[in-house]
């Protein structure tokens, strides 16, 4: 396949034109003995004889780390960085991932010395600044969710799910029966069933109805005295609000089961509606989605868990409390707690960033953010629904899910369309998820896109739909503009090479 560039020279396609990127070997391949990128200060205490002090525990063979100078390290990682796509470069329409702008002031304040250098075991009297931040964030998140109590300890969304289901289990145990199963819709994220399993529950699949929502009849049939909870994503992974949400809660509660909400799609709700008001018992948030902390190539995240008052006694230890004199402290005396889910108190650096985001928005900004996210998704839906199949006609909130049905007739699959988007200067949407849509294209623009960027995306998607008709091979062999073409994943998995060797 001859690429566009080879045929025609550099040219503009969509919003991009190709430009050279620099080659860069592995750190180890650039190393040579004797080069240094560090200088330690003179040792101001007597030197020690390590071999004598450590005896048999002395390391005699150093790890084969590279030896490089500072400029080489700067260039190495700067060159690698240019091989990445990023929100800072353009739209990132990954459905369910909420790839919104990551404000730079968040990064700035997270590095303020008194916060960045705070040791977790410093006396509480010297940690009041950190504790006040945690307390204010906690109060804001409770107001946003409409819940009664919260823990910020979980390190990510899936860790929050784990914590939330632990709370569920602990509460059922306190009622005399932990119960046996968790209901999970077939449209759910993979983390939901994986979480239920690690908390010792059987997973029972709940089939979606014709609209892609919860089938109330099926739910009524399946909920019984052995059902611990339903794990529900709302809006669903189709981007659809469960308008029967309170009946769902009622059906569960009538049998003593709880309603767990996966907060992955909270960006559609903030400031407009509160899960605590519509019957949710326990939920997690993703600060790295809804509250703008950066994804950083896969993490770190933060997954606070909010719950109703009856679950509060079970929250992980420690819990932040306020003394009579107003000072904040950690309370470790929590006899009914599910225990710790990680060391220390959580990803505090992410709390700082999320709070900075909430302060930058205020109540009006948070609501406007949600409205713009929903507006953008509906705009894309309107502008693409004549060329891509819309399997569910229900109203979209912050994301829209198409299928590749029409393009697949020409042999072009959702994964191909996604790869072709790269040539137009966009990151792909979420491919083949949710599983209830065959050949899904799951698009979440977030509020961070201007009308111009949305129009460029729409133009790209329409252009690819045309290409699928006229030149399907061009789409099927995409991308054509990247440093590497499609990589051999089968070989990678069959004979794994997971580290460099000399």
């Amino acid at each position, binding site marked *: 396949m001859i690429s566009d560039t080879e045929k025609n020279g550099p040219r503009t396609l969509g919003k991009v034109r190709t430009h050279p990127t620099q080659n860069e070997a592995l750190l180890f391949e650039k190393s040579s003995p004797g080069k240094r990128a560090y200088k330690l200060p003179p040792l101001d205490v007597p030197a*020690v004889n390590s071999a004598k002090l450590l005896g048999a525990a002395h390391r005699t063979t150093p790890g084969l780390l590279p030896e490089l100078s500072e400029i080489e390290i700067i260039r190495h990682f700067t060159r690698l960085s240019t091989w990445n796509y990023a929100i800072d470069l353009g739209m990132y329409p990954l459905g369910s991932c909420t790839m919104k702008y990551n404000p730079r002031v968040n990064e700035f304040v997270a590095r303020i010395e008194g916060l960045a250098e705070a040791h977790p075991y410093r006396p509480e009297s010297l940690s009041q600044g950190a504790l006040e931040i945690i307390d204010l964030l906690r109060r804001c998140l409770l107001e946003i969710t409409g819940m009664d109590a919260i823990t910020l300890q979980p390190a990510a969304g899936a860790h929050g799910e784990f914590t939330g289901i632990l709370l569920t289990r602990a509460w059922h145990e306190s009622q005399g029966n932990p119960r046996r199963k968790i209901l999970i819709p077939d449209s759910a994220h993979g983390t939901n069933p994986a979480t239920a399993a690690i908390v010792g529950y059987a997973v029972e699949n709940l089939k979606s109805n014709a609209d892609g929502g919860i089938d109330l009849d099926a739910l009524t049939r399946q909920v019984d005295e052995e059902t611990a909870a339903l794990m529900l994503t709302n809006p669903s992974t189709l981007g659809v609000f469960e308008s029967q949400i309170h009946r769902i809660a009622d059906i569960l509660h009538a049998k003593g089961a709880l309603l767990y909400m996966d907060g992955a799609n909270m960006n559609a709700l903030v400031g407009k509606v509160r899960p605590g008001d519509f019957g949710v018992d326990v939920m997690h948030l993703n600060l790295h989605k809804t509250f703008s902390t950066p994804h950083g*190539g896969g993490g770190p995240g933060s997954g606070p868990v909010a719950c109703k008052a009856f679950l509060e006694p079970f929250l992980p230890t420690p819990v932040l409390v306020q003394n009579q004199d107003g000072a904040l402290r950690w309370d470790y005396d929590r006899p009914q707690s599910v225990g710790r*889910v990680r060391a220390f108190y959580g990803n505090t650096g992410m709390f700082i960033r999320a709070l900075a985001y909430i302060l930058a928005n205020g109540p009006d900004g948070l609501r406007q953010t949600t409205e713009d996210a929903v507006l953008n998704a509906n705009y894309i839906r309107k502008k693409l629904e004549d060329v891509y199949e819309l399997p569910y006609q229900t*109203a979209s909130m912050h994301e829209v899910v198409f299928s590749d049905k029409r393009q697949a007739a020409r042999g072009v699959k959702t994964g191909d369309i996604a790869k072709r988007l790269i040539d137009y200067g966009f990151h792909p949407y979420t491919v083949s998820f949710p599983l209830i849509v065959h050949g899904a294209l799951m698009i979440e623009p977030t509020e961070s*896109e201007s009308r111009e960027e949305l129009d460029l995306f729409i133009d790209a998607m329409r252009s690819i739909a045309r290409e699928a008709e006229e030149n399907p091979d061009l789409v099927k062999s995409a991308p054509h503009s990247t440093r590497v073409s499609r990589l051999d994943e089968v070989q990678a998995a069959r004979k794994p090479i997971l580290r460099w060797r000399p």
Partner: protein
Amino acid sequence: MRYLPKSDEERRQMLAEIGAATIDDLFSSIPAEYRLARDLAVPRQQAESEIVAYFRAAGQKNATDYASFLGAGAYLHYRPVIIDALVQRGEFLTSYTPYQAEITQGTLQAIFEFQTMIAELTGMDVANASMYDGSTGAAEAAMMAVRVTGRHKAVVASTVHPEYREVLATYAKHKGLTTALAGYDQETGRVDLKALAAAVSAETAAVLVQSPNFFGIIEDIPAIAAIAHANGALLIVSIAEAVSLGIVRPPVEADIVAMEAQSFGVALCYGGPFCGVIAAKEQFVRQMPGRLAGQTVDGAGNRGFVLTLATREQHIRREKATSNICTNQALVALMATIFMAVYGKEGMRELAEHNLAKADYAAKTLGSQPGAKLRFKDTSLGGAPRFHEFVLQTEEAPAVWSRRLLENKIVGGVELSRWYPELGNCTLWCATEVVTREQIETAAKVLAGVEVEA
């Protein structure tokens, strides 16, 4: 709102094109009774300057100008400035998990380099692309051992970080994993090998120890491995202080290493985000949790990297996955990668030697003050080797002398009796390369009750 790239006029136009009269039409699927008809009660919209002022004030309440001897699983090391310069490049900071390999080769190659360097330092064959932290890494390693062995018991040294043990208990509870505790030798502070041998049986899936252990003492890994392996159990070594690997022999006899890499250039930040890692022998790779980057080629034969062996993971295997982990600590792992590149082969040893020397001087200086002694035997007296932490026992209650230290702007060691009731008046001190001789000597004087000139 300054982050939102739209004018009201553009919003009106877009609504018109959608065919909606008002924005609330797009929210009509939410039953009216649940729609919030008021502003959220959160602080009003703030200017950037106000936000900076708020966090600066909070930072100042967190007093910054104290010398600190705190360690215990969170270590203050110097962070080379190029780490923040590089990780704040938007192409790293604001990129997603590298599932689309063609446009995330930067992140993927950096992960591959991280995996390689962690494997080199730990003496393991493979390492994953990170876990949440050292505590969850240790808990997941125990679950991994259950899958590998098909057994459901673990023996855990009481010298493993107490909070790591608490996390393991939370994870183990609902997976049918029962744990037994092996105590420590009163003279050396090392795990009691006799007690360990008595606790391990043919039903043991894993032995979990930490080295350097919670008291800063280096465990006898070959002897522990022999006990574990004689019973067909796996040995998991938790490493909370990654810098130790510059000078301490790696636990090559282990089957799994669960590490906390915070020491590699990651700010303390009141306990997180940190960077857990699981490394293991090659034969266990398919039971590992978390993401792995692997090398492969593209259609033209160019080297490239992809996330691989995903059939272990939740998005493919759902309830049969090795773990529910999805988001990890990627950007923190990148910090660690840059840190390891900066210090490199020689620097890692030199840095570790400085830590060793500082702690040795601090232990000798503080331990020789009247009314103070080292709780566990020094190597010169037949004790076990330490890295950069030591346990000090004082006649005076720590609550008393720590007040004196605080008045002199010094934060002394952590009181151990909160986790080890038998270790009354014992405190855990840490001296990394950033602690100065002057700070050590001042702390010693104040501890001994000598007036210190301001």
